[in-house]
């Protein structure tokens, strides 16, 4: 069973639709820690404000995710779901992230290398420096395009599985053992995105 966590941060329809398209038929959209604890895989989607992740703490889902992360259940955070894996975000300084990966998420700068930088970063951008040992990005060629829409971003770190350039490099995908995240929207990234989700389903 795949638990897709619903914490009222945007629309889950597209994520669930893509997982079903790839053959996942046992999907539970849930807010219950018990469902998370008994799931074979867990997906945390989410768009919008980092503040929304406060609900994860309030519903005791943070603790459930800590437990499944420790016991090896594959976990995939998408967009804000990736950001939540870090220590926090300047978007909502009083809301703590999971802290599984080191660092804070920050807003794109208003300018980069002397030129104005539009924000949000919306559109198709390429994945670079794809880590050869990444299971999530297996068979994803460096330079493949994926769809992004976000104003905050996670820093590069030892667990970065692929980076993307926009106002400097940021983490496009992160992976350490069973805990993974993508800043882009795999459910909206055509063939490349479906490949990433398929890799996750096959873990």
């Amino acid at each position, binding site marked *: 069973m795949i638990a897709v966590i619903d914490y*009222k*941060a*945007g*629309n889950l*329809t*597209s994520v669930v*639709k*893509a997982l079903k*398209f790839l053959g996942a038929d046992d999907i539970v959209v849930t807010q219950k820690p018990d469902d998370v604890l008994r799931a074979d895989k867990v997906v945390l989607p989410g*768009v*919008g*404000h980092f503040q929304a992740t406060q609900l994860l703490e309030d519903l005791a889902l943070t603790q459930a995710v800590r437990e499944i992360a420790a016991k090896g259940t594959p976990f995939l955070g998408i967009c804000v779901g990736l950001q939540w894996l870090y220590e926090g975000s300047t978007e909502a300084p009083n809301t703590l992230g999971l802290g599984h990966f080191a660092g804070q998420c920050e807003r794109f700068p*208003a300018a980069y290398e002397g030129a104005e930088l*539009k*924000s*949000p*970063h*919306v*559109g*198709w*951008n*390429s994945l670079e420096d794809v880590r050869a040992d990444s299971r999530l990005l297996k068979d994803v060629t460096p330079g493949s*395009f994926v*769809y992004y*829409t*976000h104003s905050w971003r996670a820093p590069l770190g030892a667990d970065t599985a692929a980076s993307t*350039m*926009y106002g400097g490099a940021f983490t496009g995908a992160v992976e350490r053992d069973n805990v993974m995240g993508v800043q882009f*929207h795999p*459910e*909206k*990234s*055509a063939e490349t*995105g*479906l490949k990433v989700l398929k890799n996750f389903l096959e873990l």
Partner: protein
Amino acid sequence: MLTKRIIACLDVRGGRVVKGIQFVDIIDAGDPAELAHRHAAAGADEIVLLDITATHEGRGTLLETVKRTASQLFVPFTVGGGIRSAEEAAAVFDAGADKVSINSSAVSRPELIGEIGSSFGAQAVIVAIDARRAAGSADPVREAEVYVSGGRKPTGLRVVDWAIEAEARGAGEILLTSMDSDGMRNGFDCELTRAVSEAVQIPVIASGGAGSAAHFAEVFLAGKADAALAASIFHFGVTDSRVLKAEVARAGVPMRLPC
């Protein structure tokens, strides 16, 4: 590198894709779901479905059409037309849209932009602006006026001012349609697009007037558009996105290729 987007637009009336010239003279161009899939497969970066008669006929968006079109579509999908409330937007998202485009309803009640954004995120709200240059004015671009109800009603609002307000109220993108250029295939209104693009931080999608790859390159380079939208040049097999994008890339614009 962030690429510029080519967006295929489906103008829908009564469940069929139609195409007009300067917002009138409608002809039939096919089934929405079928065309959306064809465009995505041909390399379109995004699909927009606009229910063009929804507002003035006072009915809701065609949720069934949205649902059918969204199934098995794995590129961003925007739906507009007749969305008057956050509840109606929610129904469109439930049917499978990733973003909604609001136009007349945002002009009559600008709070709607923030209301949809607070539930679904700012990235999910596109404010569409139908613009007509101010003919006879000393500065027809700066004075360009916003029209609503499918281009039927002038509002007295200036396009640039309204774009700035829409951004301040939480719009994620602006979809700017030049009514003067729409359907003419003589090129986008680059001056107007540039004026809006420079006035806001959020992405601007240029629409109206696409006829050739050169027109797209022009609106990206001179018009500073982040994305450009077209309909008829795709529907009748004049070109497909992959061919178009290769040509636009040759003009020096970053494009998602191969796609």
